[in-house]
């Protein structure tokens, strides 16, 4: 490398930065589209050409969370005045919020689907990463007969696409009563993520010098204590990375969720598109649902970004 950058190199660098910016914008465009549609008035959602400048409003989110029906007649001024601010937004859209006989607001299907997604994704991620970490530690530290074959077997569970096993799984689940239950999906996603988690964590475990544990063993700790006090903190980066990937997989999973669940345990991915077909689609509501759906993964990844970026920094071992 030349120590001094020439002007040609400098302009090339600038060009590269422009190129990267363009690619970034192309990748971010769909996310911007969804996010902006989530805040658009309904009549601006499907204009051609697309509306870029608009007065953002919150009504899509109100509509997303409430059960609504078409207004046959406009609300009376008294009704309108008595309604809370968010209900007026629904009136403005030519709809009304459905209330029970006692006047309680009826929720739409979205909040429960969203909760289901959270329950299933978080639980299955904890299980897959937890079991994967233990398994990987075993494979990494102990001589196991047929280790390579076992590892290949674990990976091979990942080789069939989910759709192929979905029907037999559905039949089996029906027999054992796991259809449309949280545990049904949690078990599936855990099993699905486990192979990935074992392989990824094995890589990270192999990177942790075994001298650390040996030092702890000599210092008077049992292997279990050494694992929890030394190995686990050292593996934090790997655990974080694996957790992000497992969470994303479980969070976004569509095929199993579509086939295995329909009401009680249905997650957001099969629910959101199902709203497109019910009546005249309100794209702003669908965009609002999708936008909210994107947030947990974004937040989770953002919180763990240091772990993901830091990589392995084992400064205290001389190799």
């Amino acid at each position, binding site marked *: 490398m030349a120590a001094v950058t020439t002007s040609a190199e400098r302009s090339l660098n600038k060009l590269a930065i422009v190129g990267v910016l363009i690619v970034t914008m192309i990748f971010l465009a769909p996310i911007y589209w969804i996010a902006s549609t989530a805040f658009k008035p309904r009549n601006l959602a499907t204009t051609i050409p697309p509306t870029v400048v608009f007065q953002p409003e919150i009504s899509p989110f109100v509509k997303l969370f409430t059960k609504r029906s078409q207004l046959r007649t406009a609300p009376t001024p008294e009704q309108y005045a008595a309604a809370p601010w968010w209900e007026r937004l629904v009136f403005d859209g030519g709809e009304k919020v459905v209330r029970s006989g006692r006047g309680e607001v009826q929720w739409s299907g979205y909040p429960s689907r969203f909760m289901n997604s959270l329950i299933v994704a978080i639980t299955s991620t904890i299980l897959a990463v937890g079991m994967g970490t233990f398994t990987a530690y075993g494979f990494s530290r102990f001589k196991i007969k047929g280790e390579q074959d076992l590892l290949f077997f674990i990976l091979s569970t990942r080789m069939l696409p989910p759709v192929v096993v979905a029907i037999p799984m559905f039949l089996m689940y029906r027999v054992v009563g796991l259809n449309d239950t949280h545990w049904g999906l949690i078990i599936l996603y855990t099993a699905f993520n486990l192979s990935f988690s074992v392989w990824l964590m094995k890589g990270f475990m192999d990177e942790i010098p075994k001298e650390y544990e040996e030092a702890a063993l*000599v210092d008077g700790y049992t292997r279990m204590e050494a694992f929890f006090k030394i190995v686990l*903190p050292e593996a934090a980066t790997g655990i974080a990375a694996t957790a992000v990937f497992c969470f994303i997989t479980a969070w976004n999973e569509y095929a199993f969720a579509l086939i295995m669940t329909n009401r009680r345990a249905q997650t957001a991915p099969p629910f959101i598109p199902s709203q497109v077909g019910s009546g005249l689609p309100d794209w702003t509501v669908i965009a609002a649902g999708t936008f909210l759906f994107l947030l947990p993964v974004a937040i989770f990844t953002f919180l763990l970004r240091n772990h993901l970026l830091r990589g392995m920094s*084992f*400064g205290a071992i001389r190799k």
Partner: protein
Amino acid sequence: MTQIELRGVQKFFGAVQVIKDLNLKIDDNEFIVLLGQSGCGKTTTLRAIAGLETIDGGDVLIDGKPVQHLKAADRDIAMVFQSFSLYPHMSVYENIAFPLRAMRKSKAEIDGEVRSVAKVLQITDLLGKKPSALSGGDMQRVAIGRALVRRPKAMLMDEPIGALDAKLREEMRAEIKRLHIKQGSTTIYVTHDQIEAMSLADRIVIMHEGVLQQVGSPTEVYTHPANLFVAQFVGSPVMNVANAAVTMNGSGARVTVDGAAEGFLFPAELVGQLDAANVEQDRLALGIRPEGVMVSREPADGYLPVEAHIIEPLGSYDIVDLKVGAQMLRARTRSGFVGKPGVQVFAKLDPAQAHFFDTTSGASLGVRL
């Protein structure tokens, strides 16, 4: 009072036997150095004592009690690793306190002991730092502190200063010796560096291919190596070894190096001692350290003419290659003593520093003149 004993220890890695019937007794407060090339089984021996490696035969005894079935944690032994193995996510303070926490000591006790050990090692100002912020020497001090803090029965050190640069190594060597004298604990130290071994050890244990070659004080292994391996492994520059024949000539014995026209003069009792050893006297290995080869610029009694080849000036002395017959003998001379390569000088061997070995077994014939 801690004695460590190895009785008939065997260890296999698959089909390879890395420790072959090792017997060794280490006394209380002794500083033992296991010396050998890499792969000779010295580290495995150390790990077997620590409990990090299981053994396939024999006994490891600490204070007379077999411990080979005990876990590392239950042997009350501390170890310093070559890689230092400081826990990166803990501060220096936490690293040193870690073994004490395993003993479930109170906070105040832990604090007192960590600070006192830090004072001894002069690392008090480092206690708040993370290991990654330390220099190599400081990392090693912390690692030693972690080992010392719980006053273990014995300290094991696996090439603890091998990863440091030469100058720091010398400093740390002196520090380890000072600490040992001050703290006085049974210590087993593994190294491949014979200078480290010579300078630190009460006794050196030399191993080769899993077999113990010799145990003795640094002077003993240096002056009376048990076999050719020890002779050539200990000492720098390396001992000269040449095939030679011993003949009787008048009142004295003559030791003729292969291919040489004339032999060096030795006392007649050499022949008697070789007779007692019952070996073929025309096929021996002569070993002599460079300082046992005496060089003169003028012809003198008992000196043979030889040609100087390469001269290595090493500051305080020179190492001069002398061609004797078909062999090169390296001599240690005053610096600048031999002017330039190619000149003729005169050489004599000091009988008191000469060693004779069996060419087939390599064992010393025990000749002492």
